[in-house]
C-alpha cells in the first residue's frame, strides 16, 4: 500500500471507535476498487466536495429497482471506482441470518463486487457497496440462485422492514416478522417494478416503543398496540418497591397522563386514561406487560425533509386486528389507488394528503373519520363538523 497516501483519512483511525478507514485498508491490496475508493475519498476530504455522480440507468433485467447507480466524477484519476454501483439485497425479516447464509452472501460479493457491505442500510436492506455495470447481472444471478432477492429503490415499494418483534421481545403485540414476510411476497410487483409517484416505505414495529421508528420514517407505519388493560404482576411490583427503587420519581411522576398511583406495595393504573406510551412497562418490565387484546395502529404519511419538510405519520386506523392481514392489504391497496389517482410526480403520500386535505383523503380511501386520527400524538385532532351542519 506504499502508493496509498491518505493523511486526512488516517486521522479517523485514531479515535476509540472502530474505523471504517482501517477496515477499508485491509481490503485495499486485494481490491483495486477499494484502493481507489480510499484515494477518491481522501481527495474529497482535501477539496471539501464529493466526487460521486448519480447513475441514471443501471439495473438488472426486469427490475426497476434494487441497484443504485454510482460513477466517479474523476474516472481517469480513479479508474477503480469509475463504476461503483450499490446493490440492495432484501434482508430476512428481523435481520436473522445463519452463519451459512452470511458466508454465502460474502462469497458472492467477494467474487462480483468490492467485498464491502453495510449491515444494514437505513431502509433495512443489506447493502452491497460497489461493483461495475457488467457484474450486476452475474451478481443478481448468483443471489437468486441461492434464493436471495433485491430490495426496492426508485419510485417503488421499498423493502418492508420490521423490529425483531415476538422473536426476541416480550412487548410485541403482533407478529412483525410474519407481516413483513407477507407484504414482501404479496407486493413483489410493487417492490421490483416502480409504478408509484415516489418511494413508499412500510415499517412494522411490534409495540409503541416503535424500534423501527415507523412513526417518523415510513409512509405506512404499522405499530403494535393493545386495547385492554396493562397486565400487572403485583408480587413482582412489590419486589421493585422492596429493592428501594424510586417508583414515584421514575414511574408515577413520568406517566404523561398521571394515571398511575401506588398504594403501599400495590400499583394501580387507570387504563381508561392510559395513552400507551410504554414508559411504565419499559421501566418495570418484570411487573407490567402489554394487554392481552392486541393488534396494531396504522399511521400514514411520515417522511424526511427532501422535497418538502419532515412529516410525522398520522393515525389512520387506531386499532386493527392482525390475525390475518387481509384488512390491511385492502387498506394498503385503497391508499395506493388514491395516490395513483391524485398524487403528483415525486410527491410522497404524506405530502399528497396535506395537499388534498386529510378529510378528502379519508373519504377517498373509504375510512370513517374519527377523533383518533391525530396529526401528532396529543396534538391537533381533526374534527369533522359536517354532521352538525346537516342536523341543523
Amino acid at each position, binding site marked *: 500500500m506504499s502508493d496509498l497516501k491518505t493523511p486526512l483519512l488516517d486521522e479517523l483511525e485514531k479515535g476509540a471507535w472502530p474505523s471504517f478507514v482501517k477496515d477499508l485498508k485491509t481490503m485495499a491490496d486485494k481490491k483495486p476498487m477499494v484502493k481507489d475508493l480510499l484515494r477518491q475519498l481522501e481527495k474529497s476530504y482535501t477539496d471539501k466536495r464529493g466526487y460521486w455522480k448519480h447513475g441514471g*440507468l443501471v*439495473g438488472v433485467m426486469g427490475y426497476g429497482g434494487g441497484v443504485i447507480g454510482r460513477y466517479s466524477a474523476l474516472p481517469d484519476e480513479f479508474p477503480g471506482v469509475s463504476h461503483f454501483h450499490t446493490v440492495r439485497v432484501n434482508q430476512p425479516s428481523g435481520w436473522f441470518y445463519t452463519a451459512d447464509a452470511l458466508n454465502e452472501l460474502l462469497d458472492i460479493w467477494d467474487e462480483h463486487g468490492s467485498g464491502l457491505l453495510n449491515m444494514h442500510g437505513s431502509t433495512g436492506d443489506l447493502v452491497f457497496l460497489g461493483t461495475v455495470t457488467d457484474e450486476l447481472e452475474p451478481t443478481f444471478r448468483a443471489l437468486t440462485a441461492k434464493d436471495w432477492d433485491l430490495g426496492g429503490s*426508485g419510485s417503488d415499494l421499498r423493502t418492508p422492514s420490521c423490529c425483531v418483534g415476538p422473536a426476541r421481545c416480550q412487548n410485541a403485540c403482533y407478529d412483525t416478522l410474519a407481516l413483513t414476510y407477507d407484504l414482501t411476497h404479496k407486493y413483489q410487483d410493487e417492490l421490483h417494478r416502480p409504478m408509484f409517484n415516489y418511494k413508499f416505505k412500510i415499517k412494522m414495529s411490534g409495540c409503541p416503543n416503535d424500534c423501527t421508528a415507523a412513526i417518523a420514517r415510513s409512509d405506512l407505519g404499522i405499530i403494535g398496540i393493545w386495547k385492554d388493560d396493562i397486565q400487572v404482576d403485583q408480587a413482582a411490583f412489590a419486589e421493585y418497591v422492596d429493592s428501594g427503587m424510586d417508583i414515584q420519581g421514575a414511574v408515577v411522576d413520568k406517566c404523561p397522563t398521571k394515571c398511575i398511583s401506588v398504594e403501599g406495595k400495590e400499583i394501580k393504573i387507570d387504563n381508561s386514561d392510559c395513552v400507551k406510551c410504554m414508559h411504565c412497562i419499559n421501566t418495570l418490565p418484570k411487573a407490567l406487560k402489554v394487554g392481552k387484546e392486541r393488534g396494531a395502529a396504522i399511521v400514514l404519511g411520515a417522511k424526511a425533509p427532501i422535497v418538502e419538510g419532515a412529516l410525522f405519520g398520522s393515525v389512520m386506523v387506531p386499532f386493527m386486528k392482525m390475525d390475518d392481514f387481509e384488512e390491511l392489504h385492502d387498506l394498503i391497496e385503497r391508499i395506493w389507488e388514491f395516490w395513483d389517482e391524485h398524487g403528483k410526480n415525486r410527491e410522497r403520500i404524506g405530502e399528497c394528503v396535506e395537499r388534498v386535505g386529510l378529510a378528502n383523503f379519508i373519504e377517498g380511501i373509504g375510512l370513517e373519520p374519527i377523533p383518533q386520527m391525530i396529526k401528532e400524538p396529543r396534538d391537533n385532532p381533526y374534527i369533522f363538523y359536517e354532521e352538525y351542519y346537516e342536523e341543523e
Partner: protein
Amino acid sequence: MAGEISIEQIADEMYQLVAESAGQKKLKSTDLTKAMTSKYGDKVSKQDCKDAIKMLIDSGRCVYGYYGGSSIELPRVEGSANQ
C-alpha cells in the same frame, strides 16, 4: 381480464408512446396506465396495464430508468449511462 383489447396491443401502444416521447419527456408507469385507461375506459384495467408494462420490460423492448423518478424508457445506448 383482457377483453376486447389484448395485453399485446396495450404493450404495443405503450411502446409507441415511449418511443415518441424519447428524448423529450420521461414517462412513468402511471402516465402509460392513465393514457390507456383514458383512451379505452373500462375496456382496459389497471392490471392489464401492469401486465403490458411487465411484457415490455421482460421482453427488453423497454427498460426502467431512474432520473427524478422512475420512468419507462427505450433500452440504453452504450455509454449513455455516464452522461
